[in-house]
Structures are given as C-alpha cells and as structure tokens.
C-alpha cells in the first residue's frame, strides 16, 4: 500500500493512494495533497461493499446466497440492484456480447475460484454457452430477482467499472476536489479535472510490469477502460484460456485484439464497450465508430487502430 502526497510523479497538489484488490490494483488520486488518506478510506469502503455483494468466490456474498436460492424470487440489496441494472443494460446495449450470466461459462472453463488459486494446468474443459441475460426475471420496482437454476451470475466486468464510477464520485463529493479512481484497467474521474485533464497512460498491463506502454492521453470527465487478454490467463487440459469469454460460444473470445481502450461518459460505458469490442474481434472498429466511442485497439501483432476521435499516434507511439 502506498499513500501520500504524490509530488514526485504527479506534480504538486495531488494526493495518491494505491493498494492491491481483486487480483489487480486500486488507485485513487485526488487534487488535494492531504486527501489521500480519506480517499483511501472511502475507496476501501466502496470496494468492500461490492465484494460482499458481487464476489463469486466468497461463500457469504449476496450473489452466492441468491445462487443457493435459485428458482425462487429473492429481494436483493440496493447495491446489487444497481449492479444488476448496470449489467443488464450492458447486455441489452451490446446484444449480449457482455452478459451477466457468463458466470456459468467461466465456471465451465475452470475459472471457479479466486484466480490466484487456479491450478497451473487444470483438467480439460468443455465450453458452455451463456444461458442469456433475458432469463433473469428481474423486478426493479421491488428489487426482486428470480435466478433460474443452473444460471450463475458473473457481474465482474461491469461491477468493477461501476465501483470506479461510484468511488470517484463519492471521493470527489466528500473532499470537494477532483478525483480519479482506477481499478485495474477501469478509470473513472469525477469533480473538477486538473488543468489539461487527467493524464492516463494506456498499456497492455495496468501494473506496468509488462512492456507495451501506449500513449498518454487526457480526459476531463467520464471514464476510460481497457480490456485485454494479456492478463488472467490459465490453462486447462493443456489449453491456454483467458477471462474475456464469448457468451455466444462459451469459449474465450478469439484473440484479434490484445487490448482495447475506450472512453465513455462513464467508466461503466467505457468498460461495456471495451469488453464488447474484444469479444467482437475484427468487427470492433466499425462497431465502436458507429457509436461514436473514441477507442484505441491494439492487435495481437502490436499494430494499432484508433477510431471515433481517439488521438492518432505517430511512429514513436505518441498520440496526436
């Protein structure tokens, strides 16, 4: 955990805190050199709430409780209701490329426990097509969910982005300053942006432990999300798998893009689009462009495509 005034790297006037979470890194940056401790407190509280509600791997999580009561209507917490709404909206807007029922798919592929606990090479697996988000009987007025039997939720993709959006807004409101929250590839900003915007380096790996740094761009509001297949890879039956699955086939999505970075009005929207783009593969650029979503796509051979107003890059790799 690092917390403090980040004058050495970010310039004077910022506080920063960073700690591991969910197999990745949580980051908060605030435009207040004395705000890091409070920002971390708020961020940890927000993340703890999401973990209690959404974790597939905690015996006491709310989604596990709902799974145990599959086939019966269950009233869910306000936070899970919000997460579900976001996940179902993402499914609708992507025609199911992002689907909250992929928990069933991931479990079939052997990703049925915390990633760090997966064996080096598990038994062979057989893909299972996602049951489909429309099978969830969701009553938003009463916050009641009826989960069909044999359907397992995985709210991870959109839940993490929602956590970033919520935490950034909460920190900005509490401290009265601009705030950035990063959860792995998902970045959300809220409040007053610093002059020139929040500077974000897009990369293959959010930890910076792997090569593949891209350009540094600035955003002033909303979110930036990067989805990619370079992390969370595991093996089953001698086959290497990754975590961005195609709900239509039940298999890991074809590796057309190494990473896709998208900006949106929120981190949720950016993440929804970046995840869908990885699954879409070759059709992703036109799909993103049709929606006016600025994006940068890095193919498996390292070549880069940009669409919808993402700054183009010069040969040195800098965006213009």
């Amino acid at each position: 955990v690092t917390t403090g005034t980040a004058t050495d790297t970010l310039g004077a006037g910022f506080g920063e805190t960073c700690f591991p979470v969910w197999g990745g890194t949580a980051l908060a940056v605030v435009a207040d050199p004395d705000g890091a401790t409070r920002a971390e407190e708020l961020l940890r509280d927000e993340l703890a709430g999401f973990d209690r509600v959404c974790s597939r791997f905690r015996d006491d999580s709310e989604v596990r409780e709902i799974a145990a009561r599959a086939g019966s209507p269950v009233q869910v917490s306000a936070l899970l209701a919000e997460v579900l709404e976001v996940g179902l909206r993402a499914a609708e807007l992507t025609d199911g490329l992002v689907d909250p029922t992929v928990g069933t798919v991931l479990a079939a592929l052997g990703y049925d426990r915390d990633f760090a606990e997966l064996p080096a090479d598990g038994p062979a697996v057989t893909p299972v097509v996602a049951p489909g988000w429309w099978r969830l009987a969701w009553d938003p007025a009463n916050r009641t969910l009826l989960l069909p039997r044999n359907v397992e939720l995985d709210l991870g993709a959109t839940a993490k982005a929602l956590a970033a959006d919520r935490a950034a807004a909460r920190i900005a409101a509490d401290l009265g300053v601009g705030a950035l929250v990063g959860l792995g590839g998902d970045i959300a900003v809220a409040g007053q942006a610093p002059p020139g915007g929040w500077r974000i380096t897009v990369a293959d790996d959010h930890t910076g432990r792997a090569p593949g740094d891209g350009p540094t761009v600035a955003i002033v509001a909303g979110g930036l999300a990067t989805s990619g297949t370079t992390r969370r890879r595991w093996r089953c039956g001698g086959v290497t798998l990754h975590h961005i699955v195609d709900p239509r086939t039940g298999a890991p999505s074809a590796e057309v893009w190494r990473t896709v970075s998208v900006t949106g009005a929120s981190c949720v929207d950016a993440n929804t689009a970046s995840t869908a783009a990885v699954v879409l593969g070759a059709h992703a650029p036109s799909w993103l462009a049709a929606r006016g979503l600025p994006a940068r796509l890095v193919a498996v051979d390292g070549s880069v495509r940009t669409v919808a107003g993402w700054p183009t890059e010069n040969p040195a790799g800098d965006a213009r």
Partner: protein
Amino acid sequence: MNHIRQDRLAGRELGDTRVRRVTGWVAGGCASLAAALALLLPGAPAAASPPSAEDPLASEPVGVAGGNEAEGAAPLSPAPAAASGAPDTGAQRQLPRRHHQVPQQVIQPPAQAPTYTSSPRSHSHARSGAS
C-alpha cells in the same frame, strides 16, 4: 412467480423492450404457471421448445441456439474455435426482439474526446491496461 410470462406479455403490449423484466408480482391465474415452471425447472434447456402457435410470444425467441448444456459439446481443443468473427450476435443467439428504444439505451460517448498529452509518461496520473 407465476407472473413472469404475464408480465412479459404486458411488457410486449406496452412496447417495453425489456421483456425479461417482471413488472409486478401480482397474484394471477394458472395459465402462466407452466411457462414460469419452464424457466425454473432444473436442467431445462435454454433453447426450449418453440412456443405453440397459440402462444402470443411465438414469434419472440427467448432461447440460446444450441442450448447451454455441456452435453454434446466438444471439449476445447488446443486451437479453440471462437465465433467472434461473426458480425451479428443476434443471428446466433436469437435474442429477444426489441420493440422500441427506452431512455439511456445507448452507450454514451464522452462529452469530450481524449486528447494527447505531451507530459512524460512517468507523470501520468494512472495507467489503464488489462487487469
């Protein structure tokens, strides 16, 4: 719980795109019980039998082509074949038909596109990469 179908019908009549959503849990007749049970039965295939000709939802496929059962599916080979080259997701999964747009049903672009910054990368506030 025996009103899922009833509410889906209501949603359709009202033009609600979100046919999956239950608009209320009011007490109701037995006619919808069978449909509700079909949703709930353990192991029920996602690609259920086509609705009958009398079924008002007959033209609204709700299943997954191929079903979600592992039975009959091939194990992953060292070169797994994924279908992400397919341009139309709906064609493969027979998604529920939509009837009209509802508010906020669009992925919202940013108010302002990202801009290039010439700051050294070591001075960036954050990194966004695969996680």
